[in-house]
């Protein structure tokens, strides 16, 4: 799975893609199958999707960037709002000379994807909304805990909260993998991301989305729940819902086979 940097507004953006490597500053070939841009969640990075990029690479052109301030992208600050991140994705697409693509957004990335579909609908072929919500339920004490970490008052927590009980019991390696990726982003960015997530409310707006949409949810997700997914599915005309058993908030890691199959089926169904 090759990776590359590209400069977007002075920030060196790191991204995973598929296919042949190219020289620096030469845009790779994204002509295979469907272009699909995968947007990660709060305080996370594109490594979340390495199983998806691998699985899609033989038939499609997946592209997964680390958002500004996240993972292996340069700079130390995240962005202030979901719409700032959506504007960034547009600039990223411009830089890679991608007119439009299917957008997969996970968690915070899902909110970014919905905002993109509303404000830049010509750049969106289809939407895959993964473990996300139109209005996130961010408890004040959770924000306060993240703020305490960013202020140095508390250590980062490494727990199994985002995972199903079965994952924590039988597949602990993916939990550990998540922790190893968590530490690649400054805790301040995780906090400001969650503030941005808490502020957004797309419940009414998404009824105007006129794009094919697939909504994915983990049955055991306590953060972005199946009810959140059902609300999105009910609002976006024609949206389909797929719920994965024994998955928490991290279905891309926890149930990769079913998750990848659902994405492939959706891409195949696009006109």
């Amino acid at each position, binding site marked *: 799975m090759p990776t590359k940097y590209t400069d977007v507004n002075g920030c*060196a953006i790191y991204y995973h893609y598929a296919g042949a490597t190219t020289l620096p500053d030469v845009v790779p070939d994204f002509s295979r199958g469907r272009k699909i841009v995968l947007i990660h969640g709060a305080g996370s990075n594109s490594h979340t999707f390495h199983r998806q990029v691998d699985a899609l690479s033989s038939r499609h052109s997946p592209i997964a960037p680390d958002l500004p301030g996240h993972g*292996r*992208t*340069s700079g130390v600050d995240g962005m202030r709002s979901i719409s700032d991140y959506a504007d960034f994705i547009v600039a990223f697409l411009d830089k890679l000379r991608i007119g439009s693509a299917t957008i997969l957004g996970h968690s915070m990335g899902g909110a970014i994807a919905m905002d993109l579909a509303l404000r830049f609908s010509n750049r969106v072929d289809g939407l895959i909304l993964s473990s996300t919500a139109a209005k996130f339920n961010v408890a004040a004490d959770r924000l306060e805990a993240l703020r305490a970490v960013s*202020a*140095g*008052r*508390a*250590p980062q927590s490494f727990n199994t909260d985002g995972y199903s009980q079965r994952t924590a019991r039988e597949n602990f390696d993916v939990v550990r993998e998540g922790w190893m990726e968590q530490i690649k982003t400054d805790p301040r960015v995780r906090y400001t991301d969650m503030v941005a997530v808490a502020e957004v409310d797309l419940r009414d707006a998404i009824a105007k989305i006129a794009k094919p949409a697939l909504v994915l949810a983990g049955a055991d997700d306590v953060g972005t729940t199946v009810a959140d997914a059902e609300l999105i599915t009910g609002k976006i005309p024609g949206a389909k819902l797929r719920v994965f058993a024994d998955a928490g908030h991290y279905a891309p890691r926890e149930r990769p086979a079913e998750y990848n199959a659902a994405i492939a089926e959706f891409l195949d169904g696009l006109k």
Partner: protein
Amino acid sequence: MSLKGKVAVAGVYEHPTRFAPDRSMFQIMAESVRGALDDAGLTIKDVDGLCTTGIGMSGMGIIGFCDYLNLTPNFVDSTAIGGSSFVAHTAHAAAVIAAGLCEVCVVVYGSTAASSRFAIGTGGAGGPGGDPCDQYEVPFGPTTVGAYAMIAQRHMHDYGTKPEQLAEIAVTTRMHASMNPAAKYREPITVEDVLASRIISSPLHLLDCCIISDGGGALVITSAERARNLKKKPAYLLGAGEAVRHAARGQRDFLEVAAAQSGRLAFERAGVKHEDIDMAMIYDSFTVTVLVTLENLGFCKRGEGGAFVTGGRLRYDGALPINTDGGGLSSNHPGMRGIFLVIEAVKQLRGECGPRQVKDCKIALVHGTGGALGTRHSGATLILSNQ
């Protein structure tokens, strides 16, 4: 023979990055060299001397970087005495320029400590071990932060110094960082924030410790005569000193550090007094480093550092402004910070510091500390002036 006024810093550049996973150490160094030469109005063709530590490089160290720049200088120095190295390089470059061994010497540093995820402060103190002197320390697992925390413990024990007093150093430094758009941490903090942050090595809290960032920088040093004809106002070297301290088989006085010797030499050679110093750049690996360094440089008496650092004295508008760039505590600390001390001092002497500019800044002191203050460490002091 005195060096006073014969050599100047003619160009400086601080790399703006704080996290650069897209760049190698050599790239950051090369970009810094270009930046400093641009600042001086010189080109790589003018360079005939090069100083860097060689730390982080393989094999032949500095020669590999000469290869990268396609440079064949007449003088190289890769003195590696920790974070103070680049301060010492500046003095070494001045000496060889005054002696006629080279004319334009570049001092350069670069590191990807943050994006490469090095453990700096929590790593072992005094290197990987294996030297004869290590047998008394390494088996007991000291860390760098632990070696500095011991100094703080001793100071508190002997003189009743308070954690609040150390915290004020961090608060002042962050206030300065808030005026430096390139600083990694810019949100103001309070003494309460420092004391509420978690303990890393008692009595040092997280916010008593320097940050870890990527970064780099470079200096261009040349004769005073040549510097006067270049783009920027020269920062003349008035005096310099360097020193080392070690564990001395357990006989060392903990609170007498290398700065006592290097500072005394620098003041003597420069022929200036403490009250002549308009601002100081003091290596701030930890808050306690600043307190103990100020005592040892003679800005206050031993044991009085706690009171000395409070009451806003160290603010950019105070009686002895220090670390106006936000220091290692808030702006950047890629592992060895010495070069940034010189860069900010030169910018202050030129009057280029915008909102954090110290008024009428004519003479600046720079002191770098390298290694672990509680065991083996180095100190290098410079006194610079714009006149």
